[in-house]
């Protein structure tokens, strides 16, 4: 049983570019949440998707957007990248309970 998977593992972009990160949830999970983890900090909630709709959103600008597909996989898009967007982006999946299972993350570096 595969856990949560994310791609790519690492990514390097320049300021102003756009990036798309991908996540496949754990089998049987229908809810996907995205987090940003800056160096030396805990994960910060970006948003959560359920039934292909954004259900909750954290304190992140509209440059951060997402999508969930019918197979429950999800994408995180970030437009107009800033240096401060450099971080580890984590995807977590869950079902009706609130225990979330995390993927390995995508390390984004913005130059």
């Amino acid at each position, binding site marked *: 049983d595969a856990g*949560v998977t994310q791609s790519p593992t690492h990514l390097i972009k320049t300021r102003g570019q756009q990036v798309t990160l991908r996540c496949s949830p754990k089998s049987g999970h229908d*809810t996907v*949440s995205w*987090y940003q983890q800056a160096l*030396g*900090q*805990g*994960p*910060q*909630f970006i948003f*959560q998707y*359920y039934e292909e709709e954004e*259900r*909750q959103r*954290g304190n992140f600008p509209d440059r951060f957007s997402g999508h969930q597909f019918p197979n429950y996989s999800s994408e995180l898009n970030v437009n107009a990248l800033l240096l401060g967007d450099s971080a580890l982006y*984590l995807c*977590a999946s*869950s079902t009706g*309970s*609130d*225990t*979330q*299972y*995390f*993927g*390995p*993350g995508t390390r984004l570096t913005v130059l």
Partner: protein
Amino acid sequence: AQSVSQHNHHVILSEAASLELGCNYSYGGTVNLFWYVQYPGQHLQLLLKYFSGDPLVKGIKGFEAEFIKSKFSFNLRKPSVQWSDTAEYFCAVTTLSGGSYIPTFGRGTSLIVHP
């Protein structure tokens, strides 16, 4: 809005020493509490969780945590640490909002255990 404080940012212990990592949260309502661990090069893993019932919760690898509602605390303990416990430890709190549970994480505690 809820917040989570982990007061120990860096902890260095020798093997067999006892461990206690502090976690305090600010939210007056019903909360669910978690401790996650991130071993070097690995992803976040659930260590233990508290939803209700016995406030003393036992998790994997000999860890336990005690929920003290009056102190808004959920401290993590282990009687005797091992070198393999070297990792980042994150406390998290969830509350029900808009039909879903969104965790708020503390900034983490880096634990280094010397052999």
